[in-house]
């Protein structure tokens, strides 16, 4: 049985070693730790417990990377074989399902654990800088290790259950939301139900739910980390969270093994679906005749779902916003129309940002994935014209969200315009806008280079970039290198730099698409 596992393990390590991007990623990680160390060293002059500060930085950095790995790296262990249609071949070669699961998940888990363990000596420096004990370091790595094992196996289950990497990543993301936000939401609901006298405070259901929520809290990696990082932590490194996360990992692996034959062996169609787009002409959900802006028509209907999806979004957003406003109105004493407008505006702004982020990760990637870039590139248009037409078509899919955004904006216009002048004069506002634009461009560019995970990678890069920028700025200010004026000037320069990068990314995307079309 282990022969197949070792063969897959060996192959995965060889592939991992040959890829430049894995080495680049590790190098980036090392640079970030060094950066954290520099910050801790600088801040040790002005604050106490610099070691704890350094340690916290490194730990939360690790936590973010583990989360991203869970969504992308671990969630694709089996789906990538499904998409390549190689599972059958592996089974034919005598690799049984358990070996296959181990062989696909273990190398990824080992790579991540190695990345964690090699930092261990560096984090011991935090003890020297002060504020951290060896027990805290050990407990933190045990906590992260157990969470990593749990998450990697959660990714494995999702990878077995889903037919595509994208769906598996989404399922992991939803599971993580439930893990982190489920207990507080459940607690909130149960408190609401008790306060409205729908259930008795001492009833079995309330008691049971509260005990369950408490257990969830105790098994939460975030709660355990914050507990460890408080001064004076002296509990055992192998706490409740460690064992529950480890157990969850084992259970997830067993679940993946049990579900393997049922889900992983089904034939996966590589053909893209039509979704709600009707095949029959003259129907409301039919794409009808191609517009003269043919690429926009194609992207609106066949990448973003067309009118049918727009209508569904319109109804869903409407219902969700109505429910939200009704709930707030019901629970608060006064809720004016303006406040309602602001609720709608800010909610839909988040939706618009998410929708455009998703579009930017798909807009060019689908052409590469479907191998259609060659025929599209042969049209008598420049690659830039093709790309902009695609952007136009995709942006039509955001109209429902924009509709509610504008409605919200109009309802809350008085409130919003009051501080508008002040907000527009803030360099930070423009930096945020440009950063969001840059994030979309970066996602689109990355999606032309990597098979999956462009969106989380862009997110991590933006997060790291921002962290480096703002910490550097804080250091400059703390070190007496300048006041708020310097900060403002650097913010403006950074905004200009990002704007130039956006323009540059247009050329890079153009070059990359031209290159891909010629392959």
């Amino acid at each position, binding site marked *: 049985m282990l022969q197949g596992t070792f063969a897959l393990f060996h192959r995965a390590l060889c592939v991992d070693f040959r890829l430049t991007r894995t080495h680049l990623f590790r190098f980036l990680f090392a640079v970030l730790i060094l950066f954290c160390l520099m910050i801790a060293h600088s801040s040790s002059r002005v604050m106490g417990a610099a070691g704890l500060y350094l340690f916290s930085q490194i730990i939360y950095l690790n936590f973010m990377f583990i989360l991203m790995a869970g969504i992308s790296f671990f969630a694709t262990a089996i789906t990538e074989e499904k998409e390549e249609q190689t599972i059958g071949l592996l089974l034919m070669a005598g690799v049984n399902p358990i070996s296959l699961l181990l062989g696909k998940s273990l190398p990824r888990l080992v790579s991540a654990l190695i990345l964690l363990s090699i930092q261990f000596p560096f984090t011991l420096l935090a003890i020297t800088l002060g504020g951290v004990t060896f027990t805290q370091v050990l407990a933190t790595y045990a906590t992260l290790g157990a969470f990593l094992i749990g998450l990697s196996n959660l990714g494995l289950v999702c990878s077995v259950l889903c037919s595509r990497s994208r769906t598996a990543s989404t399922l992991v993301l939803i599971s993580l939301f439930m893990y982190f936000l489920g207990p507080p939401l459940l607690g909130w609901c149960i408190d609401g139900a008790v306060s409205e006298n729908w259930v008795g405070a001492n009833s079995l259901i309330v008691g049971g739910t509260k005990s369950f929520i408490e257990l969830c809290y105790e098994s939460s990696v975030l709660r355990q980390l914050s507990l460890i990082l408080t001064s004076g932590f002296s509990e055992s490194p192998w706490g409740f969270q460690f064992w529950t996360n480890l157990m969850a990992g084992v259970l997830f692996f067993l679940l993946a093994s049990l579900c393997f034959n049922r889900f992983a062996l089904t034939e996966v169609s590589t*053909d893209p679906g039509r979704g709600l787009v009707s095949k029959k002409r003259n129907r409301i959900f039919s794409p009808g005749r191609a517009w*003269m802006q043919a690429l926009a028509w194609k992207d609106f209907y066949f990448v973003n779902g067309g009118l049918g999806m727009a209508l569904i979004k319109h109804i869903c957003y409407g219902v969700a916003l109505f429910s939200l406003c009704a709930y707030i109105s019901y629970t608060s004493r006064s809720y004016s129309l303006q406040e309602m407008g602001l609720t709608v505006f800010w909610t839909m702004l988040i939706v618009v940002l998410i929708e455009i982020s998703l579009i930017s990760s798909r807009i060019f990637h689908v052409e590469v994935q479907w191998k259609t870039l060659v*025929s599209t590139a042969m049209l008598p*248009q420049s690659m830039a014209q093709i790309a902009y037409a695609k952007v136009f078509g995709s942006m039509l899919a955001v109209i429902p969200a924009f509709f509610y955004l504008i409605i919200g904006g109009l309802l809350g216009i008085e409130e919003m315009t009051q501080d508008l002048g002040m907000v527009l004069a803030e360099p930070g506002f423009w930096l945020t806008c440009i950063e969001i634009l840059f994030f979309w461009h970066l996602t689109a560019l990355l999606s032309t280079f990597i098979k999956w995970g462009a969106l989380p990678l862009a997110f991590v890069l933006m997060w790291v970039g921002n962290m480096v920028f703002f910490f550097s700025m804080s250091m400059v200010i703390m070190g007496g290198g300048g006041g708020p004026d310097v900060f403002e000037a650097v913010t403006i320069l950074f905004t200009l730099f990002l704007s130039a990068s956006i323009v540059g990314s247009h050329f890079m995307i153009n070059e990359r698409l031209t290159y891909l079309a010629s392959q």
Partner: protein
Amino acid sequence: MNHPINNQPVIDIQNVSHSFKGHRALQGISFQVQPQSLHGFVGPNGAGKTTTLKIICTLLRPQGGKVEVFGHNVQSAVKEIRKRIGFMPDHFSTYRQMTVFEYLDFFGAAYGLGVDQRNQVINDVLTLTDMDGRKDSLISGLSRGMQQRVSLARVLVNDPDLLLLDEPASGLDPRARIELMEILQELKRMGKTIFISSHILSELAELCDSVTIIDRGLVKYSGSMDGLLTHEQEHPVYKVMLEAEVEGLIDSLLREPGILKVEPTEKPRELRIMFDVTLTNTGNLLSKIIESNGTIESFQRDKKHLNQAFLDLTEQGVR
């Protein structure tokens, strides 16, 4: 829309070279394709066929040499060239979630055709490719041969003067291959210039007027199909299948002036005949067989010879 024909070659490739990551895919190739001809581009796997095709269709910029299509340089007149050509890659590059009609309608609109014009063009290309009954079918639900026809129909939507087809018959069953070749012959009759790549010379032997053979980035032969045979061997070889054995036929044929070699093949009642084209021709040869009381069942150029010519021109080994 057929443009006036002149003596200018449709494709003119002069000393073109191209490399990928240190590998020299093309090493200074030169050849021409004449208007309204069906030109075969043959070479083993990895010979540089697809690279050449992508340079001709403006997807790839040549690193050295000059490529002109309809007299336009591929590096400077991309849009003009793209309007007049249709390129079918070696893989299905179709939006498989669309129906056949939607797919063709999309490309028609992308080429700037109005609705009425598109209706006409789509009907024409569907008739030509014998896909009339499948226009509302999803592309993903079609067989490989049908999908290849859809790709061909797409290439024809803008009524191109030059068709560039990269291994269009690969992966098709024999019937689909024959039907595809019939469509290509019909397109040739319509005045299109067709440049077709393949790694099987015999597949193109009866279809093409001219052929270019490429191997490891070098042109080994470029010219007429007949020229290929005389290029490799001085005298053509034909195979004759007789209804029944005729005693003394081999001796009587060998006595004829110009007939150099007559030998039985591995099949019963079949003869392989080599003759000197300067002294005799196929008409004389057939007359002599009939005069000798032979009843001919079939008469064809020796395809094995074409394959041999190809093997002789190209080097051994998998690329």
